[in-house]
Every structure is written in C-alpha cells, then in structure tokens.
C-alpha cells in the first residue's frame, strides 16, 4: 500500500517547518523560545528522514533509526539548554540572549 500524497509534499512540509524554525531561531531573543524553535527544526528533519526511508522502501527502517537518534539528541539538547538558561537566569534575571554579551571580543 502506498500513500496517495506525493513524497514531495512531505519533503516540502518538512522544509517549511525547518525554515520557520530557523527564522524563529534568528529573530527571537528569548532563549527558551529559541530552544523551542531548534526543536521544531529537529522535528522537520525527522519528517524528512521518515519520508525518505518510506520512499526508498528500506525494509530495515534506516530513516526511522536516525529519527530515534534525533530524538535522543533533542532530549539531550533541551535538557542542557534549559539548564544553561536557568543557570544564566540565576546570575542575571533575564532570558534574552542579546543581553548576555560578556563573550564579546
């Protein structure tokens, strides 16, 4: 059984989601929101992976395997990212990334 929706639709959707997330990362100044947008980008990647693994019809679900790894990465990323945000917030009551520029060269 095959999908009636062409694969391209899935890929395009994933691209759209990815670049929306990217735009979010680029324009928002709230660290937490930036984290969310990164999650969106990762998820877009997941969609693409699953779709392609479907298209190639690999029986051993290579794409899905990578999706699982992406899940792992996402979990780790959000955990550490939030930890950093909290630690940052503890030292100065802000979560806006552009107010933290001590690393300015």
């Amino acid at each position, binding site marked *: 059984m095959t999908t009636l929706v062409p694969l391209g639709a899935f890929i395009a959707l994933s691209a759209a989601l990815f670049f929306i997330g*990217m735009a979010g990362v680029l324009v928002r100044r709230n660290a937490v929101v930036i984290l969310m947008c990164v999650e969106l980008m990762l998820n877009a990647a997941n969609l693409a992976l699953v779709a392609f693994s479907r298209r190639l019809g690999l029986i051993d679900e290579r794409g899905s395997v990578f999706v699982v790894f992406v899940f792992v990465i996402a979990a780790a990323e959000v955990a550490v990212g939030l930890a950093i945000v909290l630690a940052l917030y503890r030292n100065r009551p802000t979560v806006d*990334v*552009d107010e*933290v*520029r*001590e*690393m*300015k060269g």
Partner: protein
Amino acid sequence: MLPAEASRVADAIDLVWLIAILPLAAAVVNGVLGRRWLGKWTGGVATVALGISAALGVAVLFETIGLGHEAKRIVTLYEWIGVGDFHVPVAALVDPLSATMVTVVTVVSFLIHVYSNGYMAHDRGVHRFFTWLPLFVFFMLVLVLADNYVLMFVGWEGVGLCSYLLIGFWFERPEPYVAAKKAFVMNRIGDWGFTIGMILTFFTFGSVRFGEVFPKVAEVHGVDPTMLTVIALAFFLGATGKSAQLPLYSWLPDAMEGPTPVSALIHAATMVTAGVYLVARSTALFAAAGPALLVVAIVGAATAVFAATIAIVQFDIKRVMAYSTVSQLGYMFLALGVGAPIAAIFHLATHAFFKALLFLGSGSVIHATEEQDMRRMGGLRRKLPITYWTMLLAGGALAAIPPLAGFWSKDEIVGAAFTNGYPILSGIGVLTGLLTAFYVTRALYMTFHGEPRDHHLYEHAHESPAVMTIPLLLLAAGSVLAGVVLGFPPEGGFVHRFLEPAVAVEGAAQHAEPELVAILGLAATSVAAGLIGIVLGLAMYGRRRPDPAAVSRAAGPVYTLLRNKYYVDELYDHRFVELMRAAFGAAWAFDIHIIDGIVNRLGWVAGLVGGGIRRAQTGVVGNYALSIAAGLVLLIAVYGGYAMGVLRR
C-alpha cells in the same frame, strides 16, 4: 604472531609476554589499592605474581632447551611505532640467551620477594616497596625479552627509574636520595651512550631489530668497521653506566643506601647485569668491531682489580659486597672482551645466585643487629647459624672454591682469557681472584667469627624468620649446584651447548681448542690464588699475625688511597661538575635569548592579528546563528546551482 607460527599450537613461549605482564599487574594493583586498602598484603600480591611468572620462566627455559639448536622464536604482540621504514614492534625474542636471563631474573626476583616479605614487614612504606619492586621486574623482563634496541631501551630506562626510586626508598634521610640522584645521573650518562648507539644503528642498518641488524653485520663488506666500532663503543658506554664499570662505577656502592633486598635484586643480581646482557646480545656487533672488544676486556679487567682493592679496606658489610659486585661485573666484561660471551653469561647466572645470597645474608645480619659496620659485629655465627652457613657457601662460591658455583664460571673466564691470547688479562683475573678470596674471608670472619666486639648488639641479635631464611637456603643450593650442573665439564658443559647458537658468530675467537693441561693448570692457579687469599685473610683476622692494623700502618699512603676509593668521587665533583656548569650556563643563555625570543616575537604577532579579528565576536548568540544560517544559504545556493546545471564541476 608471525605467520609461520600461526598454525602451531600455543605453548609456554607464546605466553612469554605473560611473564612480564604479571609483575606489571601486581605493581599496578599495589600502586592503586596498596596505600588505602592492601597495606601489608601488597607483599603477598607481588610475591604470588612473581611466583607465577617464575614458574612460567622456568617453563619457557625448558621449552627452549627442548627446541634444541634452532631455538629462536619471536612472539610479536603488536607494532608499537611504525613510521616510514622505522618499525618498532613490541615483540619478545625468545632464544637460549634471553631464556636464561628470564629464568635467572624471575627466579631470583621471586626468592627476593619472598625474603622481602619478612625484611620489609615493619616498614611504613611497604606498599611503595611492593609497588616498585615488581615494576622493576617488569622493566627488567622487557629489557631482557626485547627483540629490538628501542624496546630494550624502554626496559633499560625503566629499570633505571625503578632503581632510582628504590635507592631513595627511605627518602626521609639525606643519604638515600643523594645516592639515588647520583645513581640516576650516572645512569643518564650511560643511557646517552645507549641512545647514540641506537640512533647510529638505525642509520647504519636501517633497522633496530636484532634479527635484522646482526645478519647485516655478519656479511663481510657490509658496513665500514669504524662505524661499527663507534656503535659498539657507544653501547659499551651505556653498559658501563648500567653495570657500574670504570669510569661510571661509583654510583653502585652508594646505592647500598637502599633496602638490602633492593641491593640484592637490582644492584647485584639483575639490573647491573643489563650491561653484560646488552654486550652479550650484541656479540655479533662487538665481534665485528675488533678494537671495541679489546676496550671491553681492558675496562673489565681494570674494574675487576680496581674494585677488589677497594673492597679490601671497607668496613661496611654491604659496601664490601657492592665493590665485590663491581669487580665481578668486571670479570664478566673481561669474559665478553676476550670473546667468551658464554662464560660471561655463565658467570652472570652463578653470580646472580651467590651474590644475591651474600646480600640477603648480610641483610639478615643487618636485620638481626640493626648494624652495618663489621667492626661492631663478630661471633655472630652462634646466633645466626643458617645465615652463617649459607653465607659461608656463597663466600666460597665467590672465592671460587671448587666445586662451588663461582669456581666453574670464574675459572672459565680466566681460561678463556688465556686460551684466547690475553695472558696478562688472565693474570689480572687470577690476581683479582686472590683479592676476592681475601676480602670475602675478611668480611665473613669479621662478621661471624672471633669474639663479639659489641656485647649489647650481640645479645639482641636473633636469627631471621623462616620467610627470610628459606630463600637463603634455596639460593645456597643454587650457588652450590649451579656451577656443576651447568658448567661441567669445563668448556663443554651444558650451558655451552645450550647458549652456543645464541651467541655463535663467525669471527668470535671462542673455538680455540683448549688443551687439557692448560685448563687444569689455570684451574689450579686460580684455586691456589683463592686459597692463598683465604689463608691470608684467616691469618690476618684470625690470629692477628700479621696484624691488619700494622699492615695498614705499614702501607700508609696506599691504605688511605684505598680507604678513600682513589678519590674518584672528589675528582668527579670538582672537575666534571664545574665543567658541566659552565657548558649548561651557555646553553641556558642561548635558550632564553634566542629560542624564547623568537617564540615571544611570534606570540606578539599572533596577538596583533587576533586583536584585529576579535571585533567579529559580538558576543550575541543571535549574530552567530545568523552567520551560520548565511552559510547554510550559501551551501543551498551552491547545491542548487549544481542541481540546475548553472554551476558545473
């Protein structure tokens, strides 16, 4: 594992690496767990490990014997360094020579570990001791088993390090660590020679593996002899450093500051013989380099007599043994020099037994009396019977009294020196034998006979525990039997048949058929010399005629000269050290002003550049993200270009 042996079933020789690994494991375990948890039990750990590897060592020896003449096998673990055509495998070369050495090392080490359990029992740093002693054994085995000079050098340095650590074991007192430093520095000089030899070997033969170097030496018009001589002399410099030969001998007597088992193991039985082993291993090299051999022989003979004369007048029991060790090593080098490596190795083996025994015996005396000065001892034989008898046997062996071990080996050296055409050297050997017999008699007599000179000391003396005396007995058995079993009949004994293939090279002049008369004559001479020495010693110290004091007074200046060990240390301190100071001062100035100067300038330039670039670092995460995204866009553009054919490769 070499492909040729891939099919063969595994046997003891394939496990040869285990022999070396076990002590290392013991050292690691004790080093990690020793201080907090194991404490006294470190001794047990080390001893068990050594016991196993000793058993394995014996097994390997017998298997090698079983292999007969083609007994030469290389057990490769892995390739350590492979740069261009410079290959250094971590491989064990098992042939009669190394098998003998392995057996001697492991067995003696095992016995000494057992002994140490008793000797070090009450020491605070016992876990340190049992960390470094097995570590030493490991490095020694690496040295012995290495199938190339580089790996051998690893072991060479390792034993140096361990000897440093163990000489300075009681670092609370000043003398030990001063002695340790001295030993280390002098060894460094030797190691420098070794390094030079190694490098030259590689540049000359394009390899550092024994199996590849020696054949190239053998072929007649291979390399020019001067280079060979240089290499050989460089290696010999290393040997003199490690084996305490002239002129680098003076660290060994000071090394007696370490614990007695250390002196016995490192500075009598094993490490100091590394030099001998090196030269014996490189027999092909030395044999090809004619003059080098002569140097070796002369240095050996000179060291032998030189150290023996010093040993005569020492009062510290361990120092007597130390100088005796130096002189015995001199014998071995003499043997090597006159082209009788087998005799050298033979003497090495027997010497390992009886000298270790002598040290352990004196250690047991020290353990009993808390005293090293023989002038305060005396009459101890009633208190320490086992120690006394075992040491008596060992002394006999050292004084080359037939049929004890020392006789056979030493006699062979003298004989080889004579038959190979060095009558003077063999004469020196005989003279040294006399001196040896004299000082060993003196030492034993002053320690064990006569009236106790210090009654308080005498009262408190007591025989050592079994854990210390049993090794004594075993070693005594060794020093009685080793000679006969291995070396009979002379020149044709088992050891010869066994070691023949390992050191056989054409050009080595050890096939000069000795006629029986010469052998017997020489044997008689050396035995006579030994007896004379003993009688003299008994006369002087037994019934005081001539009275030693009178003798020393009579030979005033000579006596003082000997007492002060020919002022060698002073010479070194005043001349060489200042020289070195000046040289290194210059080097230091160069380093500070030129090298560091350049580095600083470079750093300054880098600073300038960075100062310019750092403006890009705005510190705002968003900007970084933006730049990343821009890069992504570029990437997509490029790929899109390829996809649409706008760009093409």
